[in-house]
């Protein structure tokens, strides 16, 4: 089994993803932006968070032009799995593999805190057996999910919303929306269910000593799906 974890200049969560995979006895492999050929041998790819190329143009904007990113569409078409976390989600939106954009938080500040999210769909195997409400950290400056009205409608009709921000009781409220995302959207999946993009960090909620390991289930699901 081969799971790649992208490492662009400025990516800084790749070791955390590797740590989560390692705890499930999977050795992930770092994929640098110029190593697009390696994608052919991979079963799945995790686009790890951080600040690829410093987010200098806009988050994920430069990474989306890299050789690896250009091959992502083929990867997706072959039905292989991709999980984009935080900056990875931004890259998936920049490459148009997932719809919508992630823009500056309403507060115009970087926000790092624990939030609650609720799983909204069963269409992706990556979302199996998740706790109904997951406590999980976010850490981003540009995590506000935005799409035009028809786009949002389409996502809802297609049942593509993976997660919404909610309160401890699972209610989707304005107060529990940390960054002003439309309809509290925290993550989405594609129609086939093999691509997941999410702003919260499951790898940061994968060990008890960090507060919870509820996030680990997403990696468990990924590994199980590849095994199938």
């Amino acid at each position, binding site marked *: 089994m081969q799971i790649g974890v992208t490492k662009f*200049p400025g990516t800084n*969560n790749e070791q955390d993803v590797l740590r*989560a995979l390692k705890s499930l006895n999977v050795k992930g492999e770092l994929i640098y932006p110029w190593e697009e050929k390696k994608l052919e041998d991979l079963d799945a790819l995790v686009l790890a968070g951080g600040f690829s190329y410093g987010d200098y143009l806009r988050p994920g904007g430069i990474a989306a032009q890299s050789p690896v990113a250009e091959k992502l569409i083929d990867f997706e078409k072959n039905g292989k799995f991709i999980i984009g976390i935080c900056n990875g989600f931004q890259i998936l939106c920049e490459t148009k593999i997932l719809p919508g954009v992630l823009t500056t938080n309403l507060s115009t500040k*970087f926000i790092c805190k624990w939030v609650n999210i609720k799983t909204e769909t069963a269409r992706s195997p990556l979302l199996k057996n998740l706790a109904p409400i997951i406590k999980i950290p976010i850490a981003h400056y540009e995590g506000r999910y935005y799409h035009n009205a028809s786009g949002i409608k389409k996502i809802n009709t297609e049942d593509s919303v993976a997660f919404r921000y909610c309160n401890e009781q699972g209610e989707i409220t304005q107060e529990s929306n940390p960054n002003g995302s439309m309809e509290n959207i925290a993550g989405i999946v594609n129609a086939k269910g093999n691509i997941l993009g999410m702003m919260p960090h499951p790898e*940061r909620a*994968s060990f008890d000593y960090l507060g919870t390991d509820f996030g680990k289930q997403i990696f468990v699901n990924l590994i199980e799906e590849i095994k199938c």
Partner: protein
Amino acid sequence: MLTTEEYSRILDVLEREPNKGEVAVFEAMWSEHCSYKSSKRWFHLFNVKAPYVELGIGEGAGLINLGDDLLVGIGLESHNHPSAISPYDGAATGVGGIIRDILSQGCKPIAILDAIRFGELEKSQHSQYLLENVVRGISFYGNCCGIPTVGGEVEFAPQFENNCLVNAMCVGVVQKSKVVRSIAAKPGSFLVLYGARTGRDGIHGVSFASKDLSDKSDRDRPAVQIGDPLMEKILIDVTLELVEKELLDGLQDLGGGGLSCAVSEMTHKGNTGAIIRLEDIHLREDDMEPWEILVSESQERMLAVVECDKLDEVVSILNRQDLTYGVIGEVTDNSHCIAYSRGEKIVDLPVDLIVDGFPEPERITEKPDYLKEEDSVVPDFEDLNQEIIKLLSSPNIGSKAWVYQQYDQHVQTQTVVPAGSDAAVLRLDNGKHIALSLDCNSFMVYLDPYNGTANSAAEAMRNLIATGAKPLAFVDCLNFGNPENPDSYWQFVESIKGLGQFSHDFNIPVVGGNVSLYNESFIEDKRERINPSPTIGMIGIIENPEKLIKNSFQEKGNFVVTIGECDGNLNGSEFLRNNFGILQGKISQYDKQKEVSSRKAIENLNQSGYIKSCHDVSNGGLITALAEMTFENEIGVKLDLLENDSFIKLKLEEFLFAETPSRYVIEIHSEHIESATKIIEGKVSFNIIGKTNSQPKIEIENFLILEIKQLKNAWNKAISQYMED
């Protein structure tokens, strides 16, 4: 600027006039910032030894051995002047600088903490602006580098209005066998400068840091460095690869004084010399003068010493990562730093002269006038509840969430206790936990530099103890006024004596730090000086993670016990300062014996597993400590004080607000209270003051009822109310 005395010394030794490039080198290296010429003479007062100290003061990081030959590197530095005139870039590059300090010893940076000080938010838009941008700068830089910012402190006082303080601390880890030193030991080795290109930013940065600010300081903006965190992140990744492959024979970052500092300090430590060729340095601007290249403080640059047979591999790694580098010279054995620019020799100076050849300036101490003031008197007040809410609304007491939520606290997935508790706790790969605290009570230091400093260090220690950690070592950042002013210098010397005493009393060595003087200003001819602020960053270890202590009440029905005795002294307290604007009088003295007894009590009780939660009593006194313990789980507490000696002896406000050192509040299960009492009886002054309960209130029977919700609301908004529209 060089003094007349310093210039004569140069003439005497060189027996000739120094040229322009050489003068620039001396100006940088003999500045207070680089030379420690007013401070070094007192460092002998510090305890610097412990069996686990692998590297003490003198290089980028102090190194301590946690066992299994896993070393922790720790450093703390100021970036005050740059942050005062350009808060965003000043703070960002302050963080960048301390990261590279840690990196210089081969450490992988794993945590950042910051101590920041400003004028009063409620009165000053300027201070709001500084806070906004300093936090943004730290956030932008630290987050992008992938290092969690896990703690620190924020303090506000009018004395920081025109002299804000930004101190950044970084912690890293390295295997003992991979440690790199900032030494150029072997003649014939190459000097490789890698990272960002060299530009004009930060020229004279150290000279700017070594003089008072004034209303004309804005003109020094070019002396502020500009940061590029993406470059820093790449620099970190590449350096760690070079370290892992053991390709470096020496490494130092380019900070204050730029290249001239890195080359001369590394050769000085190695008893060597160096030849460098300035044309081999990649520049941002083509027309830079040789002297500018020598002292430029452009960020994100490292100078490596590489042995001949390893150069090819180093170069291939740097090439692969597309990182700019130049092989700019060689280590020699002639004890001189020599710089050529296109064949022309522009600097030829003895290394010893550059690094420590300066004449030690005479410095005079004189006790300041303000210390003659009498003890403070508590003014009459009507409603105690309102006073308590006012206290919790003080930005010095209230929640700092507005600040730390802008920092990525969780990256690297090691953060067990993030910012907002007594100490941050990280879990290392070997399963051990380290605890980190960063503290200073500048008001107490202002009123009594000796005792205030020793007590501040003790508070940093109490923060670790309250988390269940064993303190191992500390670093300090000594922020003071102009050493040429006898009263400012007196504050500095007294403070260092207090810190030295503490380090010996508790056998906690100083392993590094930084001195920042000249934090004074003349604005419209009025002298302004910071509260003397020796910030203390302490590290401790939690060998057994089960002994990690929570800081907030865990269950209802448990006993609440105070350890240590309240002396009722309100001088220097946040209560008097915040609520009534009074800051004067004699503060509680540093008391080793009491501090030891209290610490031992907590350690022994924790060893026996009796502590459900613990919090030290510091700013805002007992009532603040209790309130903070109720907030997280909204577990209330009811106090019964009718037989409490201090309560009977003292006025209610003294009992509630005094900041007497050596005190903790602990929560103990009712089943354990008897055995717990036996452990500490006769060894420490303690009182069972009440019990936790499910009522969301803090109650002192017949005296006081406070709703937790109301307190928490005031506490939560303390900073954010001034920072959000």
